[in-house]
């Protein structure tokens, strides 16, 4: 009988009962003997400049206020961004450091009081005078001309293959279009929150953070603290999506408060703070040039990306990634330029580069297909690469074509009208769209330690995090499968900096990397167990490969031995092993991606231009599927994000102030339940041996790439209107729809 917890089974989330009963403890919810004091963040309301005057007297004497921290009285810290040679997740993130204002929303004071109501009200009593920087720059467009030092994920900013200009000029059919995507918010449902406490020696911080080891380093660097005296805990995280990779303002401020008052201090970002103080995804301008033969064979692909960068915070997305790797071409031009401006910090947001690069690029590819008078699906299939066009490397695996074909068949693509605007039902125009889906697949160093106890339970420790990705469950399955134990005999302990350093959550590498480390530890444990079995039963020459671990037993040759008995007989209360993973040659020598194909059907109202998605379908190739239930959920989530990027999300920048005017969840539009179409997801469940020992590939960010373009392409097919400024809101369609 198959172990319901083995790899590949749709095991219910092991943290499910806690989450559905409200017993999973998120950062702000950890209990203390005495309730922590509450800190309220006061934000700067100019984009750049300095604080000229800060009058906190009335706030300090307001009811319930314990302290008001400013740059005048906050603890000494390492300057923001230092040391420069550290990565951005371990550099100093100093707050309340000096009178300099980095962006609109930058914290300039922390009011600490006994209750939220007292802190929030006292904050209104603070008087601030600014000296604004007259030369503040709050927008960035195609004039961006700084070359970023590197792109997130390590790609080179500029890449040229062949002679792009020649190939483009020689092409029979050319396309030169410019797309834009707006500033976007990660908008995790849990606002960033932290509770810091200092007992005179050790600083303990409950946080909501995706990477724990780097968080300790960042806190140590910032606060000039011994990292061994800092403990960070993040067992449950209410969504991250990149915005909780690093250490952000609330954590630093809570620590400063705790150090100042020698009492626990809790800082929860108000939702309006989150729009400034959690990193956001910066806007982009993408110029795409495509050249093809008359029969639709691409011969030149050009992609230029222009994005803003928060001044003093080096980060740039690899927006050109899909253009570099999806389709065959001998001539490739891909460049990235940034412009430092006075805006809130932009950093990784779900699928950096691919998410918005695919929105534009897969739309441009669609345009090219129509220009060549080809079916957009056939056009894509006719341009599949046989090696990575950007590097010449072979692909570790490549079944994008199969995804497209299988998806087309399941979606009913063949019933599509060739010409746009040709199908309607009542007042609704109907359209179909397709897009290729591609996301880089990574393996990142990770470690773990496990203990097999004499009572037959197994515990694993890692500072790994579960941000809704299902880590607790996947790791349970890997342990259950390898050690032959049921799920309820396995404890996965995560989210504590005292545990072995893992890869953390990000870049879709979590399951593969922490899972591979656990697999390694479990295999080491099997070896240890077999050594004991060998010693106890004189099975000196029985090959280890023949041993099976099932149902809490070791089945070896003609013997069945209970794990509990083996351990009890050995006199050991428990056995411990460690495991780790490092990316190997396969990640150097091969181009590693996960793939998919996505299809959308939309209805567009002829009268109002409202777009409503009817169907989404995706076929995904992500190696071996460790848990089809949680994998499907990840893909569902990404498709919802993609639809949202196509139709809804936009941070509305007011360039006079350098802030976003729709800084709340009423006006920053995320999809609601009613926006959901019928969503159909299929896996091509085939292990990829070059990816990692589990054969799995990254899923967390896969489906966001391409979902949006499929929707936008469907809007074009329905209406004949091509909108190149995302999101595709009704006003942009309306002006082109006949009345």
């Amino acid at each position, binding site marked *: 009988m198959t172990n319901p917890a083995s790899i590949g089974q749709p095991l219910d989330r092991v943290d*499910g009962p*806690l989450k559905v009963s409200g017993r999973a403890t998120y950062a702000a919810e950890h209990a203390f003997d005495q309730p922590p004091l509450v800190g309220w963040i006061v934000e700067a309301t100019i984009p750049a400049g300095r604080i000229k005057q800060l009058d906190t007297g009335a706030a300090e004497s307001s009811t319930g206020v314990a302290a008001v921290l400013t740059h005048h009285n906050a603890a000494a810290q390492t300057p923001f961004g230092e040391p420069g040679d550290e990565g951005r997740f371990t550099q100093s993130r100093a707050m309340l450091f000096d009178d300099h204002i980095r962006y609109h929303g930058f914290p300039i004071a922390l009011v600490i009081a006994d*209750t939220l109501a007292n802190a929030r009200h006292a904050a209104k009593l603070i008087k601030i005078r600014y000296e604004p920087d007259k030369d503040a720059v709050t927008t960035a467009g195609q004039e961006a001309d700084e070359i970023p030092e590197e792109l997130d994920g390590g790609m080179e900013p500029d890449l040229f293959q062949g002679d792009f200009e020649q190939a483009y000029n020689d092409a029979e059919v050319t396309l030169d279009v410019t797309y834009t995507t707006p500033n976007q918010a990660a908008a995790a449902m849990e606002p960033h929150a932290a509770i810091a406490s200092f007992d005179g020696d050790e600083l303990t911080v409950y946080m909501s953070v995706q990477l724990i080891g780097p968080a300790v380093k960042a806190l140590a660097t910032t606060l000039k603290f011994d990292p061994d005296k800092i403990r960070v805990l993040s067992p449950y995280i*209410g969504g991250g999506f990149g915005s909780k990779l690093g250490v952000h303002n609330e954590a630093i401020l809570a620590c400063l408060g705790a150090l100042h008052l020698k009492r626990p201090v809790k800082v929860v970002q108000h939702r309006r703070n989150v729009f400034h103080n959690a990193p956001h995804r910066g806007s982009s301008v993408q110029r795409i040039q495509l050249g093809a033969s008359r029969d639709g064979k691409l011969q030149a692909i050009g992609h230029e990306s222009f994005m803003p960068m928060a001044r003093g915070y080096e980060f740039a997305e690899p927006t050109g990634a899909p253009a570099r790797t999806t389709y065959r071409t001998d001539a490739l031009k891909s460049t990235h330029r940034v412009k430092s401006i006075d805006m809130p910090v932009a950093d990784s947001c779900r699928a950096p580069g691919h998410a918005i690069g695919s929105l534009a690029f897969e739309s441009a590819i669609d345009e090219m297909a129509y220009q060549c008078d080809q079916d957009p699906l056939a056009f894509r299939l006719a341009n599949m690469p046989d090696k990575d066009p950007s590097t010449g490397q072979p692909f570790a695996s490549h079944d994008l074509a199969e995804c497209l074909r299988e998806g087309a068949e399941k979606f009913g693509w063949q019933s599509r009208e060739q010409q746009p605007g040709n199908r309607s039902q009542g007042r609704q125009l109907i359209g179909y769209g397709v897009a290729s889906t591609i996301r880089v697949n990574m393996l990142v160093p990770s470690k773990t330690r496990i203990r097999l106890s004499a009572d037959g339970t197994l515990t694993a420790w890692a500072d790994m995090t579960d941000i809704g990705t299902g880590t607790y469950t996947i790791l349970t399955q890997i342990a259950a499968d390898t050690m032959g134990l049921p799920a309820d005999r396995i404890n996965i302990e995560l989210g504590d900096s005292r545990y072995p350093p893992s890869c953390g959550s990000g870049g879709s590498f979590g399951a593969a990397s922490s899972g591979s480390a656990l697999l390694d530890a479990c295999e080491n444990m099997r070896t240890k167990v077999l050594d004991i079995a060998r010693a106890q039963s004189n099975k000196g020459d029985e090959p280890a490969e023949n041993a099976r671990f099932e149902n809490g037993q070791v089945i070896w040759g003609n013997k069945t031995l209970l794990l509990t008995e083996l351990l009890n007989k050995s006199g050991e209360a428990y056995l411990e092993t460690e495991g780790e993973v490092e990316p190997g040659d396969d990640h150097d020598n091969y181009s590693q991606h996960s793939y998919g194909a996505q299809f959308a059907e939309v209805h567009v109202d002829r009268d109002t231009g409202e777009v409503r998605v009817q169907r989404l379908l995706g076929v995904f190739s992500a190696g071996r599927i460790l848990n089809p239930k949680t994998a499907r959920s990840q893909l569902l989530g990404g498709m919802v994000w993609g639809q949202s990027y196509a139709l809804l999300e936009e941070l509305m920048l007011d360039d006079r102030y350098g802030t976003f005017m729709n800084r709340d969840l009423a006006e920053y539009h995320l999809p*609601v339940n*009613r926006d959901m179409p019928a969503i159909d997801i299929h896996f091509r469940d085939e292990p990829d041996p070059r990816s990692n020992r589990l054969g799995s590939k990254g899923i967390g960010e896969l489906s966001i790439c391409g979902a949006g373009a499929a929707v936008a392409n469907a809007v074009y097919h329905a209406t004949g209107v091509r909108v190149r400024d995302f999101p595709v809101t009704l006003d942009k369609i309306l002006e082109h729809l006949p009345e």
Partner: protein
Amino acid sequence: MPVLYVNGKQVTLDDDPRTTLLDTLREHPNLTGTKKGCDHGQCGACTLLLDGRRVNSCLILAIQCEGSEVTTIEGLGQGEHLHPMQQAFVKHDGFQCGYCTPGQICSAVGMLEEVGNGEPSDVTGRGDVTLSRAEIQERMSGNLCRCGAYVNIVDAILDTADAHSLKNGGAAT
């Protein structure tokens, strides 16, 4: 001192009338299940049942509820036994990060009651209320989920409603 009743137990309110129902709960050691997503009635994460009705607890002053019965996520189910709606959410994977989940579940429970009462929604039109997928989607639109678990949430609710209806001999849709 003013009190209200949370999951059948008496909770004394603090003397600051500004304290919301949500903060009263979240500052209570065993009642952090109700979540704060926006504090301004725009996300639904704070949804609970007040005298049986689903409401956003962030926009209610605790003092307004003096004497009322509040049911939070902790009050659904009995101890270790999950409420059928909670079980269905686990079975259908109606969550990922779990932060919106208590609000979703309380909202769903309240919603089924509203449907049972024949209260219409924006998709009902002139006729009787039936529990179709379209109805559930509209009725649950007051609970945002950034992880995008909506489709599974609807499956979980349909599963629970079907089981409930079958149990009571009612007509399921």
